[in-house]
């Protein structure tokens, strides 16, 4: 039985990774699960310089999951390279760094550094607000997405470049195409969906930031639909995520066209979700006489 996948040049022992921002740099969850079993660890969104993050409350539970407005709190790339990377390297798993920025220059400078680090890939988070353009997310237009992908590509010469797409757009296939045209090796989707929760007693939004990103099982059908649509348009592989809680959910994404998947908020409900998903995929392969997990990618049979 083969569970190994080659995701844009990153050879992973299985298609299961953990999603950016839900798993820190792996230290906390390493107390609960064996990181060696994971296909890859995708780190917390990391910037060129440390970022304070948003004031609390940053989290709010809603039907089907939660809203968050962490505000990309992170210690900066220098700290990561010095303290977290060497520790992560002691595990037999792939390391993908989620990269963020507030300006194109910041992204480029960060990726110049990432290109020199001992990591397996970079996931470019294009949901970050662009401070030069009224804080609209970078990845909301074709031109913006292609431009930033192209600029980063120039300096990230030696690592696979995965562009993480925001679902808060009119047509995600256009944006996915922009990433491909800009030189990305893969795309990942979906990031959180912008939401808002109001406390009717105080008449104020629950989150201090007013709005936040919706994640969890409630967004799964949207993620699956988007992965399917993108798979019909682009020729680079897709990392599928959004609401995956078990192997059944993961397989749905793979049938829709994802080569690999990420477990995000479901880590919070059960820290063992990723490991259980790996075992569940193996069980599914046994039950359905599947020799190679690659044989199910994109094999949904549309009505």
């Amino acid at each position, binding site marked *: 039985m083969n569970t190994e996948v080659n995701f844009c040049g990153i050879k992973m022992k299985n298609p299961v990774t953990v999603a950016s921002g*839900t798993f*820190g740099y792996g230290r*906390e969850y390493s107390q609960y699960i064996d990181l060696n079993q994971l296909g890859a660890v995708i780190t917390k969104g990391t910037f060129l310089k440390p970022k304070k993050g948003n004031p*609390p409350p940053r989290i709010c*539970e809603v039907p089907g999951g*939660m809203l968050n407005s962490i505000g990309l709190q992170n210690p900066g790339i220098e700290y990561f390279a010095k303290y977290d990377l060497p520790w992560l390297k002691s595990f037999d798993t792939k390391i993908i760094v989620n990269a963020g920025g507030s300006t194109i220059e910041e992204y480029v400078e960060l990726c110049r550094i990432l290109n020199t680090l001992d990591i397996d890939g970079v996931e470019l988070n294009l949901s970050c607000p662009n401070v030069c353009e009224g804080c609209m997310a970078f990845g909301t237009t074709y031109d913006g997405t292609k431009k930033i992908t192209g600029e980063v590509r120039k300096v990230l010469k030696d690592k696979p470049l995965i562009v993480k797409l925001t679902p808060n757009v009119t047509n995600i296939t256009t944006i996915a195409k922009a990433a491909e045209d800009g030189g990305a090796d893969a795309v990942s989707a979906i990031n959180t969906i912008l939401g808002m929760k109001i406390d009717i007693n105080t008449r104020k939004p629950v989150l201090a930031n007013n709005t936040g990103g919706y994640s969890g099982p409630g967004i799964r059908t949207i993620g699956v639909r988007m992965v399917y649509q993108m798979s019909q348009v682009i020729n680079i592989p897709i990392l599928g995520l959004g609401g995956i809680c078990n192997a059944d959910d993961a397989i749905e994404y793979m049938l829709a066209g994802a080569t690999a998947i990420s477990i995000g908020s479901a880590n919070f409900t059960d820290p063992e979700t990723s490991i259980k998903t790996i075992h569940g995929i193996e069980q599914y392969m046994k039950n359905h006489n599947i020799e190679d997990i690659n044989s199910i990618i994109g094999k949904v049979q549309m009505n």
Partner: protein
Amino acid sequence: MGIIRKCELLKKEMITNGIYKFSIKAPEIAKEVKPGQFLEIKVSDTGEPFLRRPISVYNAEKDIVEFIIQVKGKGTELLSKLDIGKEIDIIGPLGFGTFKIQNYKNVAIVGGGIGIYPLYQLTKELKGKSNLNVYLGFRNKELVTCEKEFEEIGLNKLVITTDDGSYKEKGFVTDFMKKDIEEHMVDMIFACGPLAMLKTVRKFAIEKNIPCQISLEERMGCGIGACLGCAVKVITENGFRYGHVCKEGPVFNAQDVDI
């Protein structure tokens, strides 16, 4: 550090309207737990509600861990309906910031509402080391709990207050604590309760230059320090940074945080 455990629910008792005391079989938690630590409890097998609920340990003895929950919303409601014998999925004990115990001579322990529960184990562990002055505040008579349990520890002083005066002293618990401390200095204040109460305690402690440990609440995602959801302002040399209640706390030195 906490791990994921399945703990059998041995006993569940409604101690007053809407407040339940749970006893679970959890030998490892009982052995490890330090005063102030909490558990992340899974409230449903269906994934809805989605997140675990943070609940403090009230008491730990031998194989048994006790916690007390006030029903607030759907998560605590589901917990209150659990059947005896059922296994509860718990991560814990959690939180590196616990109540620090030394040989203080006189301490004031002040709690409000459900904030009194994490103070019970603390008070027990301080017994024999310090003169214990305990102040417990409640909204009204119906919500008064655990008075006898605290009393039986053997305290120098126990003050019970209700906001509406329907039981014992009328007024804010912090006023009674302040008045006593003005007369008899203490060398540490421990506090847990609603934010407004903690603010008052913190301000007083800083003014009087009394060391003070407070236990904070914040909305949590992971409960273990990975999601950065439970932010609290930690004062630094050049301003502040956001620390995290689940990991650095839930107990902080009052002087160190801006609440």
